[in-house]
């Protein structure tokens, strides 16, 4: 089965909006190589449950593909067309299981030493596609905030080493009530620029009081889901024939309802949260990993205007079977290690924010919770500097977006 043979009725199993979208652009898909199409279908098949920013991106990409002449399509996808595929891959059900196909394709490309060629083809396509479909301008400067070091009484080693060259270091922060001030700042932005999934609060522990205008995801809030997932995993790995790849496939197919989430919830957000736990590594056991990965995925997928991620202490490293057990009532916390994790996690959040449109105008703030240290990055902040300004975290949040 090759893309040129695609027919509309083959997408009967897709959710309604995804099916309609595919049918509208079927002609474009028919002229693309099999090494590319399932990767696109993997995104489109979940269209009904994607964030608005993702939907816009898919809409633009499909519209652009439909605008290509056959000659242009040949030119754009030359790199993909030159890759070889196995007959097994060609014969697999890549229409209804595109994610599975992409997993198998990845293994095949590694095995046949074609991965570098695939990377190159994907990079070339991505660059051309972004040039052809520029994103809409954003209404306000994007703001990222990371709050790190919860519960750490003192820490002597230098912080923000990766970010200091990009912003100003503040050692005179007034820490009192700092988290509330930051959440107030995020709420004010949500009121000024209301849009679904545009203002996020991610907490690696128990979330603080916050505005209902914010999209909130927290490690503690997902505790019942994590527990259900770990029970599910324990059951699965006892089954004959189960291996790491089979387990991964199983996890990828889990839905919110499989893990006890209410059917009355926000299906887009619930699916996002399940993916955080089923597709990532470490998010199930370490709250710092959860916070970093959640921020990464929220930025990549929802492209929020504002994102505040607060890191909380994670449990100490223990044997994997203990980490995977759902009994964490007496879990020992690693405060200093969590601060180091969060410092790097904050850096990664900034990198991920800088991948989004408007990066040159975006702003970023990291605050050592309860302490007087922060790093502020913004268009008006001189990079690689030290500021003697005394300010509270809320004032710094205002400063970086000024």
């Amino acid at each position, binding site marked *: 089965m090759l893309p040129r043979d695609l027919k509309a009725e083959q997408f009967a199993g897709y959710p309604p909006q995804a099916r309609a979208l595919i049918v509208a652009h079927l002609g474009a898909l028919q002229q693309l190589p099999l090494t590319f199409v399932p990767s696109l279908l993997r995104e489109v098949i979940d269209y009904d449950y994607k964030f608005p920013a993702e939907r816009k991106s898919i809409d633009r990409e499909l519209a652009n593909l439909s605008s290509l002449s056959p000659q242009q399509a040949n030119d754009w996808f030359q790199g993909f067309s030159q890759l070889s595929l196995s007959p097994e891959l060609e014969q697999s059900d890549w229409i209804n299981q595109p994610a599975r196909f992409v997993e198998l394709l990845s293994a095949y490309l590694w095995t046949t030493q074609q991965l570098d060629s695939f990377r190159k083809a994907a990079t070339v396509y991505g660059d051309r596609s972004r040039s052809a479909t520029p994103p809409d301008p954003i209404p306000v400067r994007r703001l990222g905030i990371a709050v790190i070091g919860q519960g750490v009484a003192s820490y002597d080693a230098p912080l923000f080493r990766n970010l200091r060259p990009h912003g100003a270091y503040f050692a005179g922060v007034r820490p009192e009530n700092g988290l509330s001030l930051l959440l107030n700042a995020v709420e004010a932005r949500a009121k000024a620029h209301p849009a679904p999934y545009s203002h996020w609060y991610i907490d690696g522990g128990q979330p603080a009081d916050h505005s209902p205008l914010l999209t909130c995801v927290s490690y503690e809030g997902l505790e019942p889901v994590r527990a259900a997932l770990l029970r599910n995993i324990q059951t699965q790995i006892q089954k004959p024939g189960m291996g790491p790849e089979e387990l991964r496939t199983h996890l990828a197919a889990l839905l919110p309802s499989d893990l006890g989430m209410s059917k009355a919830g926000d299906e887009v957000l619930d699916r996002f949260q399940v993916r955080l736990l089923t597709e990532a590594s470490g998010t199930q056991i370490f709250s710092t990993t959860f916070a970093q990965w959640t921020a990464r995925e929220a930025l990549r997928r929802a492209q929020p205007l504002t994102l505040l991620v607060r890191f909380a202490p994670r449990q100490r490293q223990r044997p994997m079977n203990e980490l995977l057990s759902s009994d964490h009532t007496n879990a020992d916390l690693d405060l*200093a290690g969590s601060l180091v994790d969060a410092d790097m996690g904050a850096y990664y959040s900034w990198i991920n924010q800088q991948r989004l449109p408007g990066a040159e105008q975006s702003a970023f703030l990291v605050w050592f919770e309860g302490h007087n240290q922060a790093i502020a990055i913004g268009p008006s902040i001189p990079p690689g500097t030290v500021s003697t300004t005394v300010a509270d975290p809320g004032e710094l949040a205002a400063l970086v977006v000024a």
Partner: protein
Amino acid sequence: MTAAQQIANTLGRSRRDFLRDAAGLAVGSALLSASPLVRGAVARKKRKTIVITFGGGARDQETFSPEGRENIPNLLKELIPQSSFFSQVMNQGILGHYVATASLATGVYETLNNFSAVPPQHPTVFEYFRRDLHRPLSDAWVVAPSNGFNRIGESDYRSFGPGMGARVVLPKHLLGAAMSATSTDYDHLLRDNYETPLYAPQLAGGEFELQQLEMILKLSVDDFKAHARTLSSPDELSMFIARRLMQQESPSLLWITMHDIDIAHAGAYSLYVDAIRRTDRLCAEFWKAVESEPEYAGNTTLFILPDFGRDGDQDAGGNGFQHHRTGDAASRTTWMMALGAGVRQGVVYDRPMQSIDLVPTLGAMMGFTPSLSQGKTIRELV
């Protein structure tokens, strides 16, 4: 030159420049024509070779860079000044730990399933060594980190294969067998494969039987358990077993695969850095132990190399240090150091080489012919 090759060259050069500044090492290309070393003083029949794979891959940011030097003080101050250091070692194969280690051991980029307990597809260095030099089973050993490595000792290649390879000891499997079912004192030493943290494979195939603890390692179960209680990580356990093997069996070819650093897959940066520091310490302690063992002192060549690197921070397809999935230059470009008998000290070589070059180099140094290896002999070492 492709962009990836340019990045690889830059990585190699930056390691070289860093080492020249940090450790005062010479750049090797100028020394290539000089008379080769002290190899003649090492009688080939007594020669010992030890290979350590450096723990699951670490990046330059956390090791060979100004900001990473604090994590590898022992490599920088003690081992590298004694070493020939190769700053640009490329791995062009599959970046999974079992398949990459198998590739290192065969000199061929293996394509086996990283997560299956299958033997390498091509003859291993252990098979070449034992067949060509008529060495007994006891002369080649592998100390491997996780249950998934239990088939690493020998291939299923026709005319080599079963019975021709190395014995494999899996310290965690050994400890698991020794500890009582209810004990939790040793659980911290029993972490398995970090690449698939949600799934620990059950052991299948040949294994190091518990009774051999006493027969070969000359350790009672109680003594083993008592010592294990003093250790803090799986790699410390592996090093303990390796040293015991050296004392009791004196293998001429010993291969130790470390993996504590691969905790990075759990996404906790502090644990990753802690593991690098531990691995750095363990390598230095191990070399001191080698030099203190009568059978090894003065006639041992030690190779230390990661099987590959880890993803760079800037590749959008990865998540930085956490994984090695993108195939970017940072994840494919790594380093190797060789020290001890027959190796020039304090020299950095920055020409590109491949990780599969190790096996033919070992063959040239030890006197066997790895006929199916696809790597090239490292001329600076032979």
